[in-house]
């Protein structure tokens, strides 16, 4: 497999994420200021964390005078899924990625950046990853700033519509693959059924979303890895067959 390592390509691939991030971080900016944080504080949180759910959970703990332990536990629960993504991404990084790059790339391994990096057929190189991280970070931070400063300038109906942008991207990554590959489709179907059970079933729905994401994806992926193991050779072959 080849490696894509163009900064420009990374920037371009990060553009839809940047667009999708803007309204989400805009909402976070509004939320932070409404809760009593300053504009600068809201922006600093976004710049250093890059995690929507984690940040939203943190603000009430901060302003409510919660303990640092409470804050750390909340972040662990909500963000533990990133560990899984980092293990997966570790196998996707090309030869140009050195140890120092890994320390830097880890900072930008968000759901969406991970999703786009994984959707490449090739290995991803350092320059590509830096580009892919830079555009979304810009969108995330500037969205927070705009939301914190300008508050409700966007009409509600526009914010509502933009709320689906990120999910649209996820659909665009998953659907073409499951259309071609029966086993991946079955695996995804199982994970979605589990996800719905954990979302609606009594008791199970009390489990924090951060854990649910891990439980459902690990169960489905592990089961299918046993039932239908896939080798690198097979993946390569499919790539050649499909295009």
């Amino acid at each position, binding site marked *: 497999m080849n490696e894509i390592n163009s900064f420009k390509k990374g920037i371009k691939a990060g553009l*839809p994420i940047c667009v*999708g991030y803007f309204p989400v971080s805009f909402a976070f900016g509004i939320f932070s200021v409404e809760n*009593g944080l300053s504009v600068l*504080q809201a922006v600093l949180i976004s710049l*250093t*964390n*890059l995690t929507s759910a984690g940040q939203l959970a*943190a603000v009430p703990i*901060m302003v409510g005078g919660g303990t640092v332990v409470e*804050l*750390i536990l909340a*972040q662990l629960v909500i*963000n*533990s899924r*990133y*560990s899984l*993504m*980092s293990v*997966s991404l*570790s*196998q996707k990084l090309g030869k140009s990625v050195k*140890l120092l790059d890994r*320390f830097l790339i*880890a*900072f930008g*391994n968000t759901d969406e950046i*991970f999703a786009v990096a994984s*959707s490449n057929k090739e290995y991803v190189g350092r320059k590509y990853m830096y580009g892919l991280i830079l555009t979304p970070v810009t969108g995330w931070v500037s969205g927070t700033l705009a939301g914190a400063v300008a508050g409700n300038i966007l009409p509600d*109906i526009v914010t509502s*519509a*933009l*709320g*689906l*942008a990120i999910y*649209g*991207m996820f*659909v*665009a*990554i*998953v*659907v073409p*693959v499951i259309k071609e590959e029966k086993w*991946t489709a079955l*695996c*995804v179907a199982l*994970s*979605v059924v589990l*996800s*719905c059970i954990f*979302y609606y079933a009594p008791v199970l729905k009390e489990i924090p*979303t951060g854990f649910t*994401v891990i439980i*459902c*994806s690990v169960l489905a*992926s592990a089961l299918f*890895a*046993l039932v239908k*193991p*896939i080798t690198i050779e097979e*993946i390569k072959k499919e790539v050649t067959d499909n295009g």
Partner: protein
Amino acid sequence: MDNTKFFIYLIAMAGVTYLVRMVPLVLVNKPIKNKFILSFLYYVPYTVLSVMTIPACFYATNSYISAVVGFLVAVVAALFKRSLVQVAVFSCVAVFVTEVFLNYV
């Protein structure tokens, strides 16, 4: 909010979030050979994204009808192999149009 207190929170929060991402990425630095783990990691991106999308996306807009319409439009656009931006834009427009229709028609 008081800055000293804020920075203690900020460092704790950013530190945990970074470690969760960094430790596996730095420690797993060799190609994995185990067939089970490889297959597992092959499936992971698709299951993680799907689990995060369904059913959460149906509650991401003002009305779940508009969200369902937006989701279906995204699926159709993705079946026709449109780019990420196009799929995202189509689904947002679908939500917007549906909500205009629901609110004003």
